[in-house]
Structure formats: structure tokens, C-alpha cells
């Protein structure tokens, strides 16, 4: 029983903020002359009311799980990774590159190679920010933001100048052996949506993070660093190494996120494919409070909003959904602060005496 209470407590804040955000959103919808109930009905029935909609939602949620994990694991180490967007792009490009370069490999080699390439490229990219912090003390927020600009310019250069398919903004297609199959083809469910196997990789990544944090010595060191840097130093943890490792893992997770589009949907890398999934990942991690399983739920909810934005477009501008998203994020952050305040008297008093 007490455990249930704990989860209820943890989800109370986010759930309440969603409700409040929808109420405020309703005011906007009323203001532009529509019935909020109709709009919300459309939003949820088109997304969760049929198998195609669900497929679309899960397809949209997949990269958000990866970027959410990315930001979450960095937070665990006390680091703020704003760089998931860049890491996602670098990883996606690497995965595409592996797919159109090693065309002759069989699937059972090429798919692991693509996964590896995506993870390693993202990890490498983020670890630059980590190394700069470890070596010169420059703040990771600045480092990762700057690396985002460089990453986007870099992939754009590579697509436009090195791996150009004329008259497009994408790379050559990947080998069919690098394709992650769509669920509608395998199962017949979710007909018409590009929801694909990379979702399973995302779930595996969540389990991996859970295991890493809970059970491994590295995870213990990462969380210790995040909670109390001084204690980590006194426990003779290698803080530079942990900083690099924490960001490298973050970059690796984000890097995998591009496979949803590259290997699961279009089968090439395209400039601008990421649609800010890297930034949305920050919100996902914040709301999920860095819990890898909560990341799945929150990412799916954001998937509903993203795909739902398209479906209600027939009735109201899809910016309404963007407003909703923004409101939810703001409210979650401020409300969870309120909730913490309320618990403060009970939770923190012993530390005082």
C-alpha cells in the first residue's frame, strides 16, 4: 500500500497540471470561437481512438523516449544536457551513413552496426561537451548548446556537399538490410502508420538505464555525483571521468533516437527530420522526474499532443496544441515545486536536526 501512495503522490503533480493546462487551453479555444469539448474529443478520439492513431502516437513518442532518457541520465549525474537535439542529428546521420555505406552486409550485422554507429556518434558528440567541462570547467549548458549549432551545420554540410542526392535535402537510401520493420507490416495492426521496431529499442534503452542506475557501480557513482558532488569526491570517484561518461551515455541515447526516422520510416537521413525532439526531451525528462519508465508514459503523452495537433488542425490552428504543451511544461514545473513545498515540512525536517 505505501508504495502505491508514493506513485500517486509522484504522478499527482503532472496529472493536475495536465488538467489545469487543458482548462486554460479551453479558454483559448473558446476565445477563437470553438467548443473546447469538441476539440478535445477530436484530439483524443483521433489519437487514441483507433489503431492508426495509436500507431502515429507511438511513432511520434519513440524519439522522445530516447531524448527524454538522454536528458534524464545527464540529470542523474547533475548535468543539464541541452544538447540532445544535436546528438540526435549526429546519431541519425551516422546510422544512415552505416546503412548506405555497408550495403552488402546481411541484416543481422548491419542493424547492430547501425545501432552501434548511432549510439557511438551521439556519445562522441556529447562527450566533447563533457570533456570541455571536465578539463576547463566550462558549463555544460553552454557547451551543449554550442555543439547543437555545430552539429546541425555539420550534418547539413555533409548532406549538401558530400552525400547529396540531387534536388533533395536527404542522403542516399539505406540498404534494405538496415531497415527496421514497421509494425503494420509485421502484425497487420496500426495500418498505415510508420510505427516501427525502433520503439522496442527505445524500451530496451529504458530497461538498460534502469539497470545501469540501480545495479551497476557506474550508475551508483553517477547518482552520487548528481546528489552530492563533495561526497563523490571524498568517495574517490573520478569526477572528470563521470562527467564525460554521464554525457556520453546521454549522447548515446539521443543518438539512437534518429533510427526511428532513418531506419524505421524514410530510410534516409533528411535535414530537419528531428522537429525539435531534442528540446522536447528536456520537458519529457523534467516531467518524468528522470525515471526511465515514467519517460515512456510522458513521451507517449507528448506523442498524443504532437499527432493530435495535426488532427485538430481541421478545426482550430495546431498552435493550440503547442500552447497546451508549453502550458503543461510550465505548470508541471511550478506545481511540482508547490507539491515539494507542501511535503517540505515532513520530508526535510530531519536533515535539519
Amino acid at each position, binding site marked *: 500500500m505505501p508504495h502505491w501512495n508514493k506513485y500517486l503522490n509522484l504522478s499527482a503533480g503532472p496529472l493536475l497540471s495536465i488538467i489545469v493546462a487543458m482548462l486554460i487551453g479551453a479558454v483559448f479555444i473558446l476565445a477563437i470561437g470553438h467548443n473546447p469539448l469538441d476539440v478535445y474529443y477530436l484530439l483524443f478520439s483521433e489519437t487514441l481512438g483507433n489503431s492508426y492513431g495509436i500507431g502515429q502516437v507511438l511513432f511520434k513518442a519513440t524519439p522522445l523516449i530516447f531524448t527524454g532518457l538522454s536528458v534524464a541520465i545527464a540529470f542523474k549525474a547533475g548535468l543539464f544536457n541541452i544538447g540532445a537535439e544535436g546528438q540526435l542529428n549526429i546519431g541519425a546521420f551516422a546510422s544512415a551513413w552505416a546503412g548506405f555505406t555497408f550495403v552488402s552486409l546481411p541484416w543481422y550485422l548491419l542493424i547492430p552496426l547501425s545501432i552501434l554507429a548511432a549510439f557511438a556518434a551521439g556519445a562522441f558528440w556529447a562527450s566533447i561537451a563533457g570533456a570541455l567541462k571536465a578539463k576547463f570547467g566550462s558549463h555544460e549548458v553552454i557547451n551543449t548548446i554550442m555543439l547543437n549549432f555545430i552539429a546541425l551545420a555539420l550534418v547539413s554540410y555533409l548532406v549538401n556537399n558530400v552525400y547529396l542526392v540531387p534536388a533533395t535535402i536527404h542522403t542516399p537510401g539505406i540498404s534494405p538490410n538496415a531497415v527496421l520493420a514497421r509494425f503494420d507490416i509485421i502484425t497487420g495492426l496500426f495500418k498505415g502508420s510508420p510505427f516501427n521496431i525502433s520503439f522496442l529499442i527505445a524500451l530496451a534503452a529504458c530497461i538498460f538505464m534502469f539497470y545501469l542506475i540501480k*545495479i*551497476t*557501480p557506474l550508475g*551508483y*557513482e553517477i547518482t*552520487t555525483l548528481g*546528489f*552530492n558532488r*563533495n*561526497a563523490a*569526491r*571524498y*568517495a*574517490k*570517484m573520478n569526477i572528470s571521468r563521470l562527467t564525460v561518461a554521464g554525457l556520453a551515455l546521454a549522447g548515446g541515447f539521443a543518438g539512437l533516437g534518429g533510427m526511428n526516422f532513418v531506419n524505421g520510416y524514410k530510410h534516409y537521413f533528411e535535414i530537419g527530420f528531428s522537429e525539435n525532439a531534442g528540446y522536447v526531451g528536456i520537458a519529457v525528462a523534467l516531467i518524468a522526474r528522470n525515471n526511465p519508465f515514467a519517460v515512456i508514459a510522458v513521451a507517449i503523452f507528448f506523442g498524443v499532443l504532437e499527432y493530435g495537433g495535426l488532427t485538430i488542425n481541421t478545426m482550430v490552428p495546431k498552435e493550440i496544441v503547442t500552447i497546451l504543451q508549453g502550458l503543461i511544461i510550465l505548470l508541471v514545473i511550478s506545481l511540482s515545486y508547490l507539491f515539494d513545498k507542501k511535503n517540505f*515540512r*515532513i520530508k*526535510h*525536517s*530531519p*536533515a*535539519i*536536526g
Partner: protein
Amino acid sequence: MSQEPAIVMEGITRIFGEDFKANDSIDFRVRKGTIHALVGENGAGKSTLMNILYGLLSPTYGTIRINGLEKNINSPREAISLGIGMVHQHFMLIETLTVLENIILGDESTGPFGRLDLSKAAEKVSALLKSFRISIDLNEKVENLAVGVQQKVEILKVLYRNADILILDEPTAVLTPQETDVLFDTLEELKSIGKTIILISHKLLEVLSVSDYITVLRHGKVTGNLKTSETSKEEISVLITGDEFKDSLQQEFRSAGEIVLEVKGLSVLNDKKFETVKSVSFELRAGEILGIAGVEGNGQSELIEAICGLRQMSSGSIKIDGQSIQNTTPVSLIPSDKLKFAMVKEYDITGNILLGRQNEEQFSKALAINYDRLRRFSEQLIEEYDIRPSDPDIKIGSLSGGNQQKVVAARELSKNASLIVAAHPTRGLDIKASAFVHGTLLKQKTKAVLLVSSDLNELLKLSNRIAVIYNGKITGLFETNETNEKELGMYMTGMRTMNNEL
């Protein structure tokens, strides 16, 4: 005509979790204008009771009357408005702010457009300083102050808010005897102008010397209400522990063994690149306890960090068991500030036992921590050190101050290392727990102990030899039985130094 008591707490019960009563039907009354001591073992419920009075915790049952009127105190803000102020067991100052800024924080007077009006505040604080004959530089950053002075800032903070009732939770734990005397003078002064003071302490001699009344708690219940002039140390001890507890430990001056620690010409820089340890040399043998006496802030923490491989030395050498130290050389370290350096509040006891030992083979295989083993080990330590509550899964943040310290001591003293560095290892511990830690240090035959403390009683009781550190240098080295408190005090304050090389 009998005056209304300043505080009446009646039938106070506070339950944590399902049914743990940290306070169990406590009746507590304090007369106006008196110093009232609250004593009891670690975890007896002292801080809990005071946190209830200060509005940080709500009682499960019970009523509170302040100056005769029943009050519901739901927050520190309400407590302050009722004239109640509290100085916590752990300081709550912001190190990077100045003394003045810390004092007015949360109660800032503002000028037009909400601009902070520091000069008005400074005036008020200066008046306070004058009336209590305290001298502090208001513009100094708190991080540069000795703990004794920080303590004063905490008290000023409370006085600034016009408190009539002051709660001091273990204010003397971090003070030297001299600083304690100064504090007690201030308290007497406050009493003489009619303030009411509640003082928590584990040091019974202090309690006997300064208080008017004493309330004893044990396992959340009141076991005694005493008038100080009519009681004795023995009587209080029995009420605290429930039996006649005698601490008869003494250093036996056994013959020492092999050299364990050898420090030669050691110089160390602090974070701001000042040399705070200057060409220090000494050696320490197995079975020996070497005391390092000194007022806090004279280079002790940099010395300790260097010996434990946590800080680079700028010159000199450190050898443990004949080997130059490396990052991996194991040392048992109990740092002076345990909350900051030796604990992770968010972890349970088990997670804290692992801290610094995460690479020991017994606890970690390559890819997984051996939690079964760690848990069993933790349970063993909990039993051995009598850590309460005895649940290894409880967050260390919800242990009483003394029990938190016990976890650190337990973890470090159970390490397999030939050198133990212990700074104020019994700070905040009750009589029994202190005796247990002292006993553990004294019975080491194959290990060497470096005991860093500003508590001369502790040093004289445990050490074979005592070195005095002043301004980064070792200014004196004594056989314990050839020196005394007075002499050490002169060396600690720099009034005397030995000239011969050590």
C-alpha cells in the same frame, strides 16, 4: 502571583511512518526568562519536539500554548511572528553571502521600488551587536568565518527577528571550550533581559553550568523534569540512558608498532591557492593515536585531504605503510563536516555504507553491486553501532543528527585500511555512542589513528601524543601525559611555539 509559562506543550505525540513515535505524549513547559536544557540520547526526539515548536513539523496529537494562549504553529513564519526563533543542529547560512545579508535574509527591509535597503538593516544589526557586546565584521563572507562566529550569526539572525524564545539545537557541538564560554555569556545576557532559551546538548557539564531547568527525553518520552541546582551529572545520566553508564575508557599507552604514516615537509594549497599547510612533518605508528589539536581553520582540513589523497600536495611527501600514497590507497576518513562530505541524504543507510567503498571487491562485481551482501553488512553495522531506527532501507536524511554521524563512523571504521583519520568523530553523538567510538579507536592494535579535534578533553583522553597546528604549522608536539589543557590552549592560539624541528 505565578507567571504564565512561556511555553506549554501538552500531550505532544509525533508519529513517523506507520507507528513510530518519535515523540510520545510529551509534556514540556518552560518558564519565562530561564535557560531550559533538553537532553537525551541520539534519536530521543529532541529535534523533533523543537521542530514541532518551530512549526517545521506538525504534531500528530497535542496542544501548544505560548504565553498562555493556545496556538497552532504551522510554519516557521508563524513561529517567528509568535516570537520563537531557532538555531538548527546544522547551520543554515548561505556561505557566499555576507554576515549582514545572511542576517536579514528572508526579512529584508526594502526601500522604494523594492530596492534592498542595506544601510537601514545595518543600523539595526549594529545596534544589536552593541547591546550584546558582540563584535563581527558584517561585510565578511560567511564562508571565511570560524564556526564559532557562524554560530553567532545564526543567533543574531534570530534576535534580528525580535525573538523572545530562542531554541538552540546542539549549539556547542562544533564549538571549542572557549567559544562555548563566550556563547554562554551571551545566553546569560539574553536571559537577564527576559528572553527564554531552550538549549539542546549532549555535554552534561555544560548543561549543568548554564541551565536553570532540565528536561530529559528517552525513546520519545519524558523521563525527568529537574531543577539544575538540585541534580547531578549522575542522576541525569541515569535518566538519559536508563542505566548507570560509566565511561571509564583511557589511553593505555601501549608500545607502538611499525610506522604507518610518514609525513615529511608537507605543504598544501587551499582552493584559493593559499598555502594553508606549511612544511609539516610527523610520523605515526600502528597502535598509536596522534592528536592534532587546533582551532578549526588552521589547515586541518587541507592536511587531512592531502593525507587521504584528496588534495594535491605542493611539496613534501606522504607515505602510508612505506609506500607513497596513491589515489587508491585506502584510508578510513571521518571528515569534520560529515553532512557535506560523507553522506548522501537521498540514499538509504545501505547506499551510504557503500559510499567510498563501491570499488571494494566484496561489494561490487564488474557489472553489478552485490546488494545482498551489502545489506547484510549494513545490518551488521547497524547492530554493532546501535543505529536507530535499525532499518537499512530508511533514508539517512530521516535519521536523527547523531544517528547520521554513527552511520559514517560505522562505515569508515569498518574499512580495511591501516590508517584512520578521524576529525571530530564524536561530534553530536550521545554519551554511549561517543564511548563506543572512542573505544573503537582505542582498541586498534594494527592500525594508526590520526585524531583531529578542537575538543581538548577528547584529545587528552585518547591520544598518545598531541601535535598542535596553528596557522598551517605544527607549533608543538607533546607526550599526552606531559601536557595539559592550559598549555595546549596557549599553543592553539599562537601564544607559544616550539622552535626545535619536529
